[in-house]
């Protein structure tokens, strides 16, 4: 059977991996190629690279990093950050990405998902959503979690699937960086309404958080950054633990 996936996320700025808490307070972590190799060797199932810079010069630095990683590491790579057009898809795919994650770009132009899915196939399009509770509802936030769009997260997820997204990354702003576990309530609610694979993000602090996450049958993967970057948890150990909990992983 398909295994549950463990996915480290590398936020890249100025060619370096960085990590913030609740989307702010950014710290430098490591060189991306070294870190990617480390993850590949310790059992990561995929890698996600987010370009958190915006300027053109830094963008070319990012794609150089991507090329170097993609020519040495042979597991799926997803790239996100600043993807606004089908041409942006073409650019990162030509540098070695396998999947492309869209967030604000799809909010600004919902057609982007359909256009990219038509050109590259659904499997290539990952809809990443930053979600936060507002008055008891789940809202979609834009611009790295700074702006409430007022859109309902469930509607947005369903629309994304209909438009051809092949996967959803559900990132809970409420639990991001807090390390008190994934946002199970939010994930369960969203997963009831879509059939595409769901990657949970935001809140991993210990191995038990992953076993609790994967009790939700509808969640396919867990994504985390700092807990892996700072080696608080080694993916291989996490997978052994999950296996002992009868959760199937690629060990």
């Amino acid at each position, binding site marked *: 059977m*398909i295994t549950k996936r463990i996915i480290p996320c590398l936020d890249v700025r100025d060619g370096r991996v960085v990590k913030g808490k609740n989307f702010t307070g950014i710290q430098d972590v490591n060189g991306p190629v070294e870190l990617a190799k480390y993850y590949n060797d310790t059992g990561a*199932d995929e890698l996600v690279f987010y370009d958190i810079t915006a300027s053109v010069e830094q963008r070319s630095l990012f794609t150089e990093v991507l090329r170097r990683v993609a020519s040495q590491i*042979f597991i*799926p790579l997803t790239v996100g950050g600043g993807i606004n057009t089908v041409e942006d898809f073409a650019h990162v795919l030509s*540098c070695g990405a396998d999947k492309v994650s869209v967030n604000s770009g799809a909010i600004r132009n919902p057609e982007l998902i359909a256009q990219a899915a038509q050109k590259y*196939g659904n499997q290539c399009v990952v809809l990443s959503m930053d979600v936060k509770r507002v008055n008891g509802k789940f809202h979609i936030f834009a611009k790295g979690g700074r702006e409430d769009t007022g859109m309902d997260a469930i509607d947005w997820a369903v629309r994304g699937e209909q438009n051809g997204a092949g*996967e959803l990354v559900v990132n809970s702003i409420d639990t991001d960086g807090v390390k008190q576990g994934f946002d199970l309530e939010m994930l369960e609610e969203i997963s009831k309404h879509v059939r595409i*694979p769901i990657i949970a993000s935001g809140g991993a602090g210990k191995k038990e958080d992953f076993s609790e996450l994967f009790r939700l049958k509808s969640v396919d993967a867990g994504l985390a950054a700092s807990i892996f970057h700072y080696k608080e948890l080694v993916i291989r150990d996490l997978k052994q633990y999950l296996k002992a909990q009868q959760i199937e992983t690629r060990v």
Partner: protein
Amino acid sequence: MIAVIDYGVGNLFSLVSSLQYLGLTAKVTGKPDEICAADHIILPGVGAFADAMNKLRETNLDATVKEQAAIGKPLLGICLGMQILFEKGLEYGEHDGLGLLKGEVVPIADDLKEKLKIPHMGWNQLKIVRDCPLLKSSKDGDYVYYVHSFYAKNCAESIAAVSDYGIPITGVVANKNVMGTQFHPEKSGEAGLKILSAFAEL
């Protein structure tokens, strides 16, 4: 030299990188003379069955692939590249494939008995059902990376390995020099590199 056929579908960066990583010489090409000069041929592909076949036909590369397969050159189809080796595909209508392998390509969803997610996406284990040179370094239980919504069926003659997704999903096919993997060996870590390496040794 391994010719990786370029017919305008899919992302060849990883495939070429993984071949180079193994120390092999790979050339991405859509030119018949270069494909004919190669020792091995890889037919990649992502997207839809009919699109891929149309593109191969438009460039006349379908004839080149068939001719090279007929003279016994090792040919490896990957993902959609494997699917179009078969006689026909039932993706958005019924379409003829290259017909190098017996069988057809059908929606996974139609055959699933339980409500599992489509696409079949992620890491799954190989179950080897027949020895074949492509799997000489592989073993039962090796994890490989799949992402697809259609699978090859009625292909008992060529099936060499399957993966379990409620139903057996055709993973590896081989009939003499014509071979294919539904999963992406170039994305399957060490297990995938072993398969590419075994292919290059043929």
